[in-house]
């Protein structure tokens, strides 16, 4: 019964999309989302415990048991080269999209892969991960990965202008990304909302990289050339990955007053 009724609903929704061409974009998106959700509804819902059992069994037989030396080494300690900040979104696990094996990346995941600036009174959660990664694990690279269709960035971009009731916690968290939103609204004024969100997803990664640099130990390791900060963007609509570096440069000094030969620049 359940299969029949959900399939019927899917058919009717698809018909609606085909026939009513004048539906606006918001409605079309909503209908597409509903179709996907209905397609995901199984008549016999998968038992969560069974899913976990199957997953762990697969890992144990195909990975753990086949690499005893690796896991013996890992049991003693970890020495990942990467620290990764990624979004909590279920579609963007760094281990999946960048194929990190156990032991390779120290991963922090939160809404919209945000890194707040150094603040000893707040955000001890993120602070603790950076502190641990740099001082204890001595990671060599920190990679912040943004992604397409990010719900957190979308909320940052739409609130409070859309007049919706504030979320207790989400809004307080995503507002850390406000500098990114300000930059985007200024540089891309007049673009449509979805495009502005795309730009903000990228700009927010840069905002996080800049914030990372405000942690004293991050700054110290960068100046000692022990640490690189990288930005990434996973676009799962087009199947692409962008990668870039954050660099801070110190130029040679100029002496004031300028001598005549310094004027030839």
């Amino acid at each position, binding site marked *: 019964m359940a299969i029949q009724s959900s399939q019927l609903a899917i058919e009717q929704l698809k018909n609606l999309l085909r026939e009513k061409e004048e539906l606006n974009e918001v409605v079309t998106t909503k209908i597409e989302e509903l179709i*996907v*959700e209905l397609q*995901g509804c199984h008549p016999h819902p998968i038992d*969560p*415990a069974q899913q*976990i*059992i199957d997953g762990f*069994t697969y890992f*144990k037989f195909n990975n753990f048991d086949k690499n005893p030396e690796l896991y013996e080494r*890992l*049991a003693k300690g*970890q020495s990942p080269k990467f620290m990764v900040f990624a979004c*909590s979104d*279920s*579609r963007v*696990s760094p*281990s*999946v999209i*960048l*194929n990190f094996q*156990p*032991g*390779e990346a*120290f*991963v*922090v*995941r*939160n*809404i919209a892969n*945000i890194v707040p600036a150094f603040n000893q009174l707040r*955000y*001890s*959660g*993120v*602070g*603790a991960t950076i502190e641990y990664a740099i001082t204890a694990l001595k990671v060599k*690279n920190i990679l912040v990965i943004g992604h397409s269709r990010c*719900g*957190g960035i979308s909320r940052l971009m739409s609130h409070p202008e859309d007049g919706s009731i504030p979320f*207790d916690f*989400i809004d*307080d*968290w995503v507002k850390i990304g406000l*500098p990114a939103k300000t*930059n985007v609204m200024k540089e*891309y004024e007049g673009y449509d909302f979805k495009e502005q969100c795309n730009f903000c997803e*990228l*700009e927010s990664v*840069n905002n996080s990289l800049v914030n990372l*640099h405000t942690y004293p130990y991050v*700054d110290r390791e960068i100046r000692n050339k022990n640490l690189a900060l990288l*930005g990434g963007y996973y676009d799962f609509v087009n*199947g692409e990955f962008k*990668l870039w570096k954050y660099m*801070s*440069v*110190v130029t040679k*000094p*100029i002496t004031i007053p300028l001598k005549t030969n310094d004027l030839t*620049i």
Partner: protein
Amino acid sequence: MAIPSSISDPFASKFLPSSISDPFASSYQPSRISVPVKIEQTQLTTLRRSHCSTLKASMGSPGFTQQLNNNKLETLADVKDDRDDIFNDLKDRFLSFKKNVYMANPEQFENLAKVQVPKFMVIACADSRVCPSSILGFQPGEAFTIRNIANLVPTFESGPSEVNAALEFSVNTLQVENILVIGHSCCGGIRALMGMEDDGNTSFIKSWVTNAKNARVKTKAAASNLDFDGQCSHCEKVSINHSLVNLLTYPWIKEKVEKEELSIHGGYYDFVNCSFEKWTLDYRGTKLEENGRIAIKNKVFWY
């Protein structure tokens, strides 16, 4: 806040030539300043006064990504191969995913691009050895994941944090049906918690793991006969249950658990022996007033 790029830049000729082989060397533009002023000021105070220098972040704006597009770098496959190992490494990793997973399941990824409907919310440790996707096989779209030090969940009363924001989103907006808190063996965060001393020194790690100080108290009471390592192992499990109790301090979570729309589970991954234990919070049997002891059901152990 953007500083306009000046045409005559006194430092332009003093720019140190890039001797590092760098895939982005050709697109580097020293005069493009896009870092907010406040960062420059913070950095200047840490530099020695005798140096007159400017800190410039070269990749600060979307303008850079346009630069990438202008150089026709559509995908990472175009980055020069004879440079920087890390870039090659990441490029290979992504291309392997794209070929073996993404292109192999086009319909699934097309659907996922529209919306995510995960059934799980997972809270796991940031430890590189315990990625839930690896050890429990979660595929894209299945688990909304938070990772922090020692997989802790602070209480509702402790105020806004990144954990609460994710809980709010996953439970109220995504409407996940299960929350799973996964702890693990040899956890550095729990070790720090157990070894913490009240010596007046503060650090982020201390401030953060203090969220689980009740777990430490309970462990010291129940396992004082064990050595330090034994106590840490015990605390790893006590802390998971402590996080489960903290989940119930959130009114909207408690309501859904009462109505049986949401289940809360604890899990413990021991990577020394490769075993996994899982249990479910038995809400009906739990009396929260009794110093936070919880009743559990459906306990399983795989090894």
